[in-house]
């Protein structure tokens, strides 16, 4: 049955309309969790507000388990779900550069759009920066094409590389996430601060 677009249950134009609806849910979930506030997001890295950790990992676990159960029930064929390819070098370098951007700018792209929707002008400045950064990448592309394409590993999944069934890996991830939530709750008590 799923994914609906791959099995031609919905048309490409309906898919774009659904993208818009999914975006509304995305923006609503981010904003109502407090992701429109850069000081709240940055709190993650000082321990006074670990909302990012809780929301991010709860969301990843929910979607991961949902896909697992949907696949088990035969509702979705996971072979047709997009798996992000792994280019080792650019995943590490890109991630590190994004991390520096996160602590300096206080947003990531999705949260910046969520924040500008309620009037945060620092988010507008961040989005201006995003445009420049992306333009810098596209214009200078021949210079970093080598790094961009280095160490391509295909589309491995975590359970493949450590040779565990998908469900067992998922269980392990749930346990790790719960341990992190516990640390997060502890840190918020240890470094209390008013909510932004």
């Amino acid at each position: 049955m799923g994914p609906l677009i791959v099995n031609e249950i919905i048309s490409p134009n309906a898919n774009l309309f659904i993208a818009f609806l999914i975006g509304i849910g995305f923006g609503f979930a981010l904003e109502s969790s407090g992701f429109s506030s850069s000081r709240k997001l940055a709190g993650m890295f000082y321990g006074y507000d670990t909302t990012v950790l809780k929301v991010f990992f709860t969301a990843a676990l929910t979607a991961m388990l949902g896909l697992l159960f949907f696949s088990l029930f035969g509702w979705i064929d996971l072979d047709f779900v997009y798996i992000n390819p792994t280019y080792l070098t650019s995943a590490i370098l890109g991630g590190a550069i994004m991390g520096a951007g996160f602590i300096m700018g206080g947003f990531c792209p999705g949260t910046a759009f969520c924040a500008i929707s309620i009037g945060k002008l620092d988010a507008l400045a961040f989005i201006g920066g995003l445009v420049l950064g992306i333009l810098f990448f596209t214009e200078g592309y021949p210079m970093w094409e080598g790094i961009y394409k280095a160490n391509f590993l295909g589309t491995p999944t975590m359970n493949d590389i450590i040779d565990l069934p998908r469900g067992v890996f998922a269980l392990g991830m749930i346990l790790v996430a719960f341990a992190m939530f516990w640390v997060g709750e502890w840190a918020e008590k240890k470094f209390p601060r008013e909510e932004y």
Partner: protein
Amino acid sequence: MNEVKKTKYINPYIGGVLLGIVLLAANFISGRGLGASGAVKSAVVSTVNVVAPTHVENATFYKAYRQSHPGNPMHSWLVFEMLGVLVGGFLSGAFAKRLKFKVEHSPKITSKRRIIFAVMGGILFGFGSQLGRGCTSGSALSGMAVLSVGGFITMTFIFGTAFALAYFFRKNWI
């Protein structure tokens, strides 16, 4: 006084489940995860195409992009999704009475300093998201949900680097 100051965000675990259901819906319906930086890239490519069409025909990146994305770059899933994000964020902010133009920053720094750092952070994040093939949404969150190794690596390096550098930028936030 304190009660007035306290903002009314929903419980983060409930927020996470909501976000997870949205991500699951994207995978179930469209066979893909969420994203954000890709929509900005579509806007950048479209703009360059209007401003300098011959440049787009000749420069390596745009040539490859046009080949893999035939048609109008703005006619894309991520562009429509990000338009929805603006609507969804606005609705949530309106219900919770958080709509207000302001520059949010620590009382220890000026608005100007906050804006300068926001632009610099945006530049780095924009560049990094292209190198890393997606940002926190497209690569880290959506990648983790489908157990992609690349998604886990990118997530680890985004949060790891931010933690490692947090000390140097503490004045901006606390």
